């Protein structure tokens, strides 16, 4: 819609996921072009995590389709995952490895040969270059989250998935994360963020959506949306269902 002329980076259609007779996702569809940032809100159990798992090709939906850059990859085909990056509230980092070792390990998973330069550039961007030989366990939570961002960008993903990235961050680290996310958005990356936090989610997004009981009940560009009316929408949609 926003980048209508180009092929969408990710297109989701009629996505339905049933677990043992309960619909975790119910006919979810949306479309994101390059550089779009979608913030998805919803209470626990609304299906946010399921949606992210499907987008990360970890789960096969009961029905519906996911297209990445115009192709519909098979869940079993690992190659599709080369296009995906993930930042979650867990750091996905090994406490007993140094910053460099962590990134080198993840680079090896993506088959990146000689990752040295790329790693150094990324560390510069998240301002962790000086800490590169420190163990992850002695880094602060905020630093770990910045390292997570660097990790998720190692493979130059075309779609970045953020799963409650603000979880466990103090205010200053959160502010720093917000500025990093804005920077990523301005680099024309396509991002989907799942969060509880309406204000922070709206601040960085170009599109907002609300998931309730597996249904995408609200989806709009952020023009003209402020925290107040978003909050109204949120509560109204949750009550209706």
């Amino acid at each position: 819609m926003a980048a209508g002329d180009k092929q969408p980076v990710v297109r989701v259609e009629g996505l339905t996921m049933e677990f043992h007779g309960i619909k975790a996702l119910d006919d979810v569809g949306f479309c994101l072009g390059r550089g779009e940032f979608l913030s998805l809100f919803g209470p626990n159990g609304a299906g946010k995590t399921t949606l992210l798992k499907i987008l990360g090709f970890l789960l096969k939906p009961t029905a519906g389709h996911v297209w990445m850059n115009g192709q519909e990859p098979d869940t079993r085909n690992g190659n599709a995952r080369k296009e995906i990056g993930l930042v979650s509230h867990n750091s996905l980092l090994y406490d007993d490895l140094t910053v460099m070792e962590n990134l080198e390990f993840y680079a090896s998973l993506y088959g990146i040969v000689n990752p040295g330069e790329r790693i150094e550039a990324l560390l510069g961007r998240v301002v962790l270059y000086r800490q590169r030989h420190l163990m992850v366990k002695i880094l602060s939570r905020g630093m770990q989250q910045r390292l997570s961002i660097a990790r998720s960008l190692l493979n130059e993903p075309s779609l970045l998935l953020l799963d409650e990235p603000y979880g466990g961050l103090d205010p200053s680290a959160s502010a720093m994360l917000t500025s990093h996310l804005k920077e990523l958005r301005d680099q024309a990356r396509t991002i989907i963020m799942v969060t509880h936090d309406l204000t922070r989610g709206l601040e960085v997004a170009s599109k907002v959506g609300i998931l309730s009981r597996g249904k995408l009940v609200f989806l709009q560009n952020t023009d003209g949306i402020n925290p107040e009316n978003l909050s109204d929408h949120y509560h109204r949609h949750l009550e209706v269902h």
Partner: protein
Amino acid sequence: MKNIGYLAAGYMVVWSGLLLYLWRLLSIQNGLQRRLAVLEEGAGPQAGDNEDDPE
């Protein structure tokens, strides 16, 4: 006719084992039906309010 006690014991064990299992299935069923009754009773007044709120 010696050892007939062992034979009787063997048959008793088998039948009581099978009956015990049936009894267990029955008690599971009773428990489930009780839960169903509670559910049907309580469906009216305590209509679900959403316990999850956005942060």
